[in-house]
């Protein structure tokens, strides 16, 4: 019984923490973008604009929840749920500190990859069910992008898995006690970071929702809290991406002096801010460049990385 209540408590803490953080990040991103672009950003609601997300949420809840008459209604309503569910499910395997994890699965990484690949449906079906040209174009781009970068994501993770000798995320963190995997696996880290940006459709890979040409891409027809769920889902995947980078390549909760949870939080925050900084400073790439860069540069690098890592691991094992 004690075990169950502990698991339930962990779930509540992680769910609450992650969702609050996602809402807070909306404000953090807008504020940081403002500062980097020499303006203020939202600073009116609450101290320093801290309650801006709350105000946004109130507005989204009171907006008219409009479903276009030409849309495929059932699928249209279902889609925003897929975004949030797949992102939240992935957090089940994320170890925040030793023992502080909902499900310490033996195949943790595979579970994460499975949830990432299921998240693709939200984009595809959302664009299709909207039954409008912009949304459809956005989802067409998204499919090509997500399918391509999923391959590299899986490949670049495998180097870290080889070094740790396990698919279990806690064991991967423990294997980095002496050396963070970012050193031997620098190519793997670069590949994973790029693939992750593409999976979370963040700049410079935010082609599916390019607002200048596609209105908003696959979620152009969504309004009210349904749009809000796409929005929250995007921030959830930013948190997830940062957390996975920290776990796989930057030693997870490991660090001197401070408690493990604090280290994990600090390291994750660094990557979240880095992703925001990329958005503030980089232009969006052209779509064919994005795909050819993936297949012609990232893919060979990931394969070579895997080959060399495998060779070194075998050679060391004797």
């Amino acid at each position, binding site marked *: 019984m004690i075990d169950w209540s502990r698991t339930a408590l962990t779930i509540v803490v992680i769910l609450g923490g992650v969702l609050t953080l996602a809402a807070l990040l909306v404000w953090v991103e807008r504020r940081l973008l403002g500062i980097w672009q020499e303006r203020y950003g939202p600073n009116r609601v609450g101290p320093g604009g801290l309650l801006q997300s709350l105000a946004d949420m109130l507005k989204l809840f009171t907006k008219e929840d409009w479903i276009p008459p030409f849309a495929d209604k059932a699928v249209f309503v279902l889609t925003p749920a897929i975004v949030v569910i797949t992102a939240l499910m992935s957090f089940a395997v994320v170890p925040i500190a030793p023992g502080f994890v909902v499900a310490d*699965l033996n195949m943790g990484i*595979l579970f994460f990859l*499975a949830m990432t*690949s*299921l998240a693709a*449906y939200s984009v*595809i*079906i959302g664009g299709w069910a909207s039954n409008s040209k912009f949304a459809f174009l956005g989802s*067409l781009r998204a499919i090509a992008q997500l399918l391509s970068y999923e391959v590299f994501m899986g490949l670049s993770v495998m180097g870290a898995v080889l070094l740790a000798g396990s698919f279990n995320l806690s064991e991967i963190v423990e294997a980095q006690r002496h050396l963070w995997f970012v050193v031997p696996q620098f190519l793997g880290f670069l590949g994973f970071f790029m693939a992750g940006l593409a999976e979370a459709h963040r700049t410079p890979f935010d082609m599916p929702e390019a607002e200048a040409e596609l209105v908003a891409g696959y979620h152009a027809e969504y309004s009210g809290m349904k749009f809000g769920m796409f929005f929250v889902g995007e921030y959830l995947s930013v948190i997830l991406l940062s957390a996975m980078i920290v776990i796989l390549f930057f030693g997870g909760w490991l660090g001197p002096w401070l408690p493990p949870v604090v280290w994990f939080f600090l390291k994750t925050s660094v990557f979240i801010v880095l992703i925001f900084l990329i958005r503030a400073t980089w232009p969006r790439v052209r779509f064919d460049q994005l795909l050819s860069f993936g297949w012609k540069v990232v893919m060979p690098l990931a394969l070579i990385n895997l080959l060399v890592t495998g060779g070194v691991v075998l050679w060391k094992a004797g």
Partner: protein
Amino acid sequence: MEVLFYIAAVVTLVATVRVITHVHAVHALLYLVVALIALALIFYLLGAQFAAALEIIIYGGAIMVLFIFVVMLLGPLAVEQEKSWLTPGTWVGPSVLALVLLGEVGYLIAAGDHLPIDVMETRRKGISIVLYGPYIIGVELASMLLLPGLIGAYHLGRRVSKEPR
């Protein structure tokens, strides 16, 4: 555990039936995705964790996405045409065959010799050793089959004109 197994089994069966009977192609494919996820859960419950994960990553995540992609590209979906194809007459053949199988299952249950679900955890290492040991020929043949596909796709996607983009 057995309750979970039966629930997942029922979900798989219902979803699969809907795949066949649904007149709307994309909706049918979504049911197929649900069936694959439920099947992955069954694999997991039977101890084949690795197969479960691959089922979702490869079938649920990659292959079905491509299916939906192609169906979406086929343009306005011919629901009326699909309805005209699914006449009661078409059900006779499959129903008779399925009834035969149902009879066999009924006999097996009635014979009372049914085994409880036998859970045996399959490790990734075990799968790899088997794949790259006794079944290496199969792996090699499959990769040889995939290579022509890759080369063919490259050939079809090649740019013929020499003018700059």
